[in-house]
């Protein structure tokens, strides 16, 4: 259903929804910076094997705890220096980006898909199903995310897969609640009723008729969920409950760097900086998306 007028008048051709969204989005400088940084980090992650100067696990026994290239005693071979066993920090950070983004993507996708399904079912069918699903979500929400994730990892055992599973479960209720709330506002609108009258089945109503109209808040939540996933994953790695050494995960890199805090500042500084910048980028972009997608907040 395009809105272009056939009569040749001076009426401006309405923007496509995407163009309208984009024009709002690029007005927000922070969001644009966030997006650029994310694109950059994704590029590094995808081409880590070509971009990284060294293999992330390769130990240069003659170059243990070398400071960054610009500092005194630095070596141009290792831009950001080396860690306690002589591994190149820059290469580990680049490969860590791959790990963090991938695990973030998995966590967000799993909780988003499951959350959408549960939320649609709860909102669409109502009654006992609704009560049961929402009670379950409330119980999960009553515990802080990190605490709940720690509890689940305590059961399953520390590993990167288990902590990913735990975090997917922890973020689930947010998507369930959001989807259900949007479904409830949409379900009694005319277009839904008319397709129901036209004989659309429950599945078609849920996924094809209603869902596309509920997506905006979900996209925003998923972007912000990415930053939470990366942050909490790093925290679990730092506590020794997430990724296990020698995986170059940012949080577990920090955990092993702790012992060098008095002697080698660079081992401690860079992994945290990259976590902060990535999380900040996703938060900036999430805020920008929310402003651009939600007409109620547009000013």
């Amino acid at each position, binding site marked *: 259903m395009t809105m272009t007028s056939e009569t040749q008048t001076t009426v401006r051709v309405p923007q496509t929804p995407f163009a309208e969204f984009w024009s709002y989005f690029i007005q927000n400088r922070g969001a644009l910076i966030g997006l650029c940084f994310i694109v950059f980090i994704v590029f590094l992650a995808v081409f880590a094997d070509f971009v990284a100067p060294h293999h992330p696990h390769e130990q240069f026994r003659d170059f243990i705890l070398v400071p960054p290239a610009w500092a005194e005693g630095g070596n141009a071979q290792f831009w950001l220096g080396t860690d306690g066993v002589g591994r190149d920090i820059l290469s580990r950070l680049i490969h860590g980006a791959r790990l963090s983004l991938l695990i973030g993507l998995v966590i967000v996708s799993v909780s988003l898909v499951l959350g959408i399904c549960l939320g649609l079912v709860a909102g669409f069918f109502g009654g006992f199903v609704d009560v049961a699903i929402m009670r379950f979500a409330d119980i999960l929400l009553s515990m802080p995310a990190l605490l709940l994730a720690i509890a689940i990892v305590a059961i399953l055992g520390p590993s990167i897969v288990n902590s990913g599973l735990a975090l997917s479960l922890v973020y689930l209720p947010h998507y369930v609640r959001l989807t259900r709330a949007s479904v409830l506002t949409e379900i009694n609108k005319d277009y839904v009723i008319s397709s129901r009258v036209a004989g659309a089945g429950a599945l078609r109503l849920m996924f094809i008729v209603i869902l596309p109209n509920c997506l905006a808040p979900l996209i925003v939540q998923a972007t912000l969920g990415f930053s939470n996933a990366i942050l909490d994953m790093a925290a679990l790695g730092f506590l020794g409950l997430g990724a296990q050494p020698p995986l170059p995960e940012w949080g577990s890199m920090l955990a092993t760097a*702790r012992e060098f805090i008095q002697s080698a500042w660079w081992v401690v500084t860079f992994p945290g900086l990259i976590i902060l910048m990535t999380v900040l980028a996703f938060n900036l972009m999430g805020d920008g998306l929310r402003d651009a997608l939600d007409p109620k907040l547009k000013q």
Partner: protein
Amino acid sequence: MLQFLLRRLGMVIPTFIGVSLFTFALIYLIPGDPITIMGGERGFGPEQRAELEAMLGLDKPIWQQYFIYLGNVLQGDLGTSYVTRQPVMSEFMSLFPATIELTVCAAIFAVITGLTLGILAAIKRGGLLDHTVMTISLTGYSMPIFWWALLLILLFSVNLGWTPVSGRLDVMFWVDEVTGFMLIDTLLSDEDGAFISALSHLVLPSIVLGTIPMAVIARMTRSSMLEVLGEDYIRTARAKGLSKRRIIVKHALRNALIPVITVMGLQVGLLLSGAILTETIFAWPGIGKWLIESIGRRDYPVVQGGLLLIATIIILVNLLVDLMYGVVNPRVRHSK
């Protein structure tokens, strides 16, 4: 009011039951059964095993076991640690004051700095100060606090030598434990300088733990203040010729604080889970460090009991915040 109270209480009970079901299930979901874990490497013979099963009630049907567990929990019996052989409850009670002390100091830091920054940013909207505050707030909100802690240690403890690296009190002091709160105990003792030592140990952990809540509160205060400052009654107050200071403190701030209070309440859960990270880094002898160490030692009764207690505290605090909110804002208690 009574009806509001009862309705809110009615929501707490199912949540508590859900949490207790979860912690009860924890012991059955871990790989290997509890008795094998208790036995360690030596293990038990079949007879001993049967005896232990009967003693621990593991031979009963599972639903019965849950009710026994729930009954014990409600009487304050959370089992015994596999490692120290101490009751979980008494271990928790002896470590909890350290965590409360830390979280309260962090909360004080977060509220004072957060409110100040938020108000200043709202008054100077669009200016340099506003932008600085918003940047600090956004950075603080995205901060991996375990890294932030390491940076602060690096700067203030290692390079400048201003604050100690870890613990609650310098080893040269010996202070009798009266309340469990180091700040109070050192004041009660007659050791010179002990209070200063305790205080200096608290500074960095409180800042670290308070950073994210501070960022959230600053952001919320700013937007809430901006909303209130645009209201008609503020214009009226201005038209009456009241001083700017009086308008902000008496008219705007009071109304702007209502949503801020809710946000503060929501931070309690964040503070308690953040305490796990903060305590681990600063070797702070509280429940967070205890819990993480117990996971490492596979001390499951402690993990089970500790989780249940922390979750219960968070549920109760949230309840308290809701009730307080209902007292402050009548619209809440009469809705639906």
